């Protein structure tokens, strides 16, 4: 799914989005979901995409994943043109995309079974390892609907991590969880990221969440979807979502977010 190398743009750029535009034509209207978006994500970086509903965050993520084809512009992963989905860039979705006909273990195995380079025993070991990592070794054979929302997203995380992708694309993975569970998962994801040093692009519309998790926070504005501004978050890790240290960044970004909304309305 990847073409031959193209001359590099940035030395350690894992993902390069170049001038990407995307327009949707539905029965009622034409929506310019993305309009000339460019973004570079470095290897091992944790980037958060934030913005009001409909500003094109999911669309951008899908284009990075290769699930959606951009109208113009291109996406490079490791300097190669992205032409379709690849195991190197796994997506973890907003709603639970776990397969109900498989149990927790079966779900984690799904991606692994598609890797021919592993023996069945290795696959099992890897799946068990990642279930343990997300703290669900006891729920190996639980059915999907028996898991709580938080547990489901943990399984989804294990499923996304197990095939050892270099890039993890996450689309509001914690949006439907309650606050307590969410707080727990902020810790988990930070630990996992710090250990595995994956490159992560994380979509959210919760400002505090973005500040807590990201090295950089990319703020997008709607209609047409564009990158409005980018914030570097220079805070030590791990960060606590309830810590007052986040307050400063949070209120700055929240204010900028409100601005994008106002502009969108006044336009």
């Amino acid at each position, binding site marked *: 799914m990847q073409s031959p190398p193209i001359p590099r743009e940035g030395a350690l750029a894992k993902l390069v989005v170049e001038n990407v535009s995307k327009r949707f034509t539905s029965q009622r209207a034409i929506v310019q979901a993305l309009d000339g978006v460019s973004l570079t994500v470095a290897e091992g970086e944790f980037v958060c995409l934030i913005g009001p509903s409909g500003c094109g965050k999911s669309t951008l993520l899908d284009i990075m*994943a290769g*699930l959606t084809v951009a109208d113009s512009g291109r996406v490079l992963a490791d300097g190669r043109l992205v032409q379709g*989905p*690849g*195991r190197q*860039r*796994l*997506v973890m*979705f907003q*709603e639970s*995309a776990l*397969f*109900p*006909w*498989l149990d927790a273990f079966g779900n984690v195995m*799904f*991606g692994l079974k*598609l*890797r021919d380079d592993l023996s069945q025993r290795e696959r099992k070991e890897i799946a068990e390892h990642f279930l343990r990592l997300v703290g669900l070794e006891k729920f190996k054979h639980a*059915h*999907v*609907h*028996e898991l709580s929302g938080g547990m489901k997203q943990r399984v989804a995380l294990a*499923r996304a991590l197990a*095939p050892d992708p270099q890039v993890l694309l996450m689309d509001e993975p914690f949006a439907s969880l309650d606050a307590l569970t969410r707080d727990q998962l902020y810790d988990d994801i930070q630990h996992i990221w710090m250990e595995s040093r994956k490159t992560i692009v994380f979509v959210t519309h919760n400002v505090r969440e973005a500040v807590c998790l990201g090295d950089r926070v990319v703020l997008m504005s709607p209609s047409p979807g564009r990158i409005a501004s980018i914030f570097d978050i220079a805070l030590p890790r791990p960060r606590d979502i309830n810590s007052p240290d986040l307050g400063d960044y949070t209120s700055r970004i929240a204010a900028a977010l409100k601005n994008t909304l106002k502009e969108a309305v006044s336009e």
Partner: protein
Amino acid sequence: MKRVAVALAFFVALIGLWELAVRSGRWSAVLLPSPLYVAEYLWAALLDGTLLESAWVTLKRLLIGYVAGVLIGLPLGLLTSMSQTLEDTVGAMALGLQTLPSVCWVPLALVWFGQTESAMLFVVIMGTVWSVIIATDYGARSIPPIYARAARTMGSEGMHKWTRVILPASLPFLVTGMKQGWAFAWRSLMAAEIYVTILTGFGLGHLLHYGRELNAMDQVIGVMIVIVLIGLLADRLLFSPWERFLHSRWGTNVKAS
């Protein structure tokens, strides 16, 4: 336990009432035979082998025809789900032919295949296949797109996608469609057996028809009871396991039991 007892008591009472109604003499014995006569008939027919023989003939026809129908319908349904054009053509045809009671195929089946097993199989297949096509098509189209997208990012494509994602994801619809196909096949086979003589074997439908020919309502009711029992058994053996699997996996409709 208590619930089983209640149900049992109800059915025993029902039979008791029936016997009383017969005894009252208000209805002639041809209109309403005593449950004892029905039991006697069943016992005699069990002993002389008629019942088992004809049940076997019927079940063989039903199972072979049904399996053939499913094997034809499943891939066709998946196919139509993949293309708008196939949906508009084959799908529309399936929709039309599904509304046709498949007993209507009997006259054609008889001239095409003669009074043979093949004619019966044809009728059963016509009862099954359209429901299976429609259900498979609908099921494959109703899958939450997020499943397919998740599978794609993990590298699932082609056959793998069809057998490991699309098919299991549409299982809830498939089972419904296959149940409906079964119900239609069962109905059409009974109707066909009651309607025409088949040279190669007499089924339950024939036995019921003969009950009518002899004005023997005890035989008619006896065979009806056997048909109900077979229907319930088939449901229990063929579909309940799937439904239980579905309900436990999908967590839907778990009925208090």
